[in-house]
């Protein structure tokens, strides 16, 4: 769905399929992995610069989330020196700051501390209220006050 792997059938976002218009489709959707990987030899700001140059992020939004997660304090360091929490926050900021209409967040809460978790849930609430569709998978109970989210519980590989 996020365009990372080939697939059969069609996924339409805003009436666009990835097979017909990859660039437009990619503008509308973004995926955040549970255990993000980024090149260890690059610095955080090099990654940020790359995302901005390629239009994968909106500068105003990205700045907002980098500040929110306090990523700016270590953005100049090499990613190989990041802890898993630091990497996760950078990765989430890059996805939330993309300005895409549909965000797929795979286990966004793991490796985040309590304060960062609260900030993330608040950000999710804000984005959702602004019209962003967020599909989130989590092993934890995710309670977002003020947000009516549709929750699906998976048990024994079936939607319960």
């Amino acid at each position, binding site marked *: 769905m996020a365009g990372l792997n080939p697939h059969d059938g069609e996924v339409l976002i805003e009436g666009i399929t990835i*097979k017909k218009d990859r660039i437009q489709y990619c503008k509308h959707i973004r995926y955040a992995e549970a255990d993000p990987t980024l090149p260890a030899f690059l610095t955080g700001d090099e990654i940020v610069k790359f995302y901005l140059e390629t239009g994968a992020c909106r500068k105003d939004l990205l700045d907002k989330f980098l500040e929110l997660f306090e990523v700016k304090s270590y953005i100049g360091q090499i990613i190989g020196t990041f802890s898993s929490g630091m990497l996760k926050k950078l990765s989430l900021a890059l996805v939330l700051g993309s300005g895409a209409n549909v965000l797929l967040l795979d286990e966004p809460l793991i490796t985040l501390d309590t304060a960062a978790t609260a900030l993330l849930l608040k950000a999710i609430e804000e984005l959702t209220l602004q019209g962003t569709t967020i599909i989130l998978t989590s092993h934890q109970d995710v309670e977002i006050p003020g947000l009516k989210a549709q929750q699906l519980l998976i048990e024994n590989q079936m939607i319960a």
Partner: protein
Amino acid sequence: MNPILNQLFVKAFYKKNAGFFMFLFLAFFGTMSAHDVVELHHSLMINITSSFTGLIVFSLVSIAYGVKCLFFMVGQAEKTEHIFIKNLRLVENKKQMLLFIACTFFVYFPMLFYSGLTIGVGISLKHFGVSILIASTQLLLILAIAYSIWKNINVLGVEKTYFRPFVIKSKPRNAYLFTISYLWNSKRTNLVAIKLFSFLLFQFLILLNTDNVSKENFSFVVLLSVSSHALLPFFIIRFWEEEFPYVRQFPISHLKRISYWLLTYVALFLPELIFMLVNNPDHVSPLILSSFYVLAVVHLLFFTSLQYLPRVNFNNYTGIILVQFFVSMFLMAGINVWLYALAEGAIALMLYVYFYPRYELQQEETIKG
């Protein structure tokens, strides 16, 4: 302790590099008659002991091989499953150093053997100064490697550092430099070995054909150099797809994506182009040199596109490179190089555009270099 270290460093080194040594052996000894091999290496040794350039090239090759040995041995010592090696800290330093010198001696032995023969040739020519210099360099290299391993095992708190060229330290690197930075940081040994091999090829071409560098000889050397570089697209695509998979989600065109590798290939072959332009101004015209340069870049672009084909793994990829080498030799004899480059570039682009969206990384078939 000795048998364990021997197993850990020496045996593992030759086991891992069996292909590398086989390749070197075939390249330097397997393609000529015994008489020619002896003559070639004898003249090389004379060159090393008689000319400054020869000595510098030989020293650089020695250092490169030394660095390869060092990286391997340090890598072995740092592996989690080899944590027991840290117990060597309990052994007195002098004994530790002797153990590491012994291991280094055997790992470094191929270079040492060649150096020994070169020193012999130097002494027979009464070039005592150069012979002593070579012997000292080799001895220093062995001591430096052994000391580095000792330091790695005994000195705590040394963080792994990543190389960043000083000129761009102050501001973030451009995305066009990511690929070359990746090669330097993660595949440095391969990159240095490939570049050295490539330069040696061109150096041989100039040395052996001083009066007449024919287009045929030149095209053979170019293709051999490109084939040795063919390992890089394999690593590069694994880097972009494995370590940076999110780039797939970027709203950028195919041409933009391709440009990230293409400019790397343009930069990779620039030293060879400059070398040939400087050393061979009369025999092969700059226009022909440029056409071969473009062809080399396009060849790597083609090899990159091949990575996206279904079921391409390291084994069948090397087969494809071999076939491509002979097909190119055949085609270059009959077709204009520019035309050939254009046609191959078009095929590479078509393959890429068609297979890129259909690509799925086969994790089990990747190799860790």
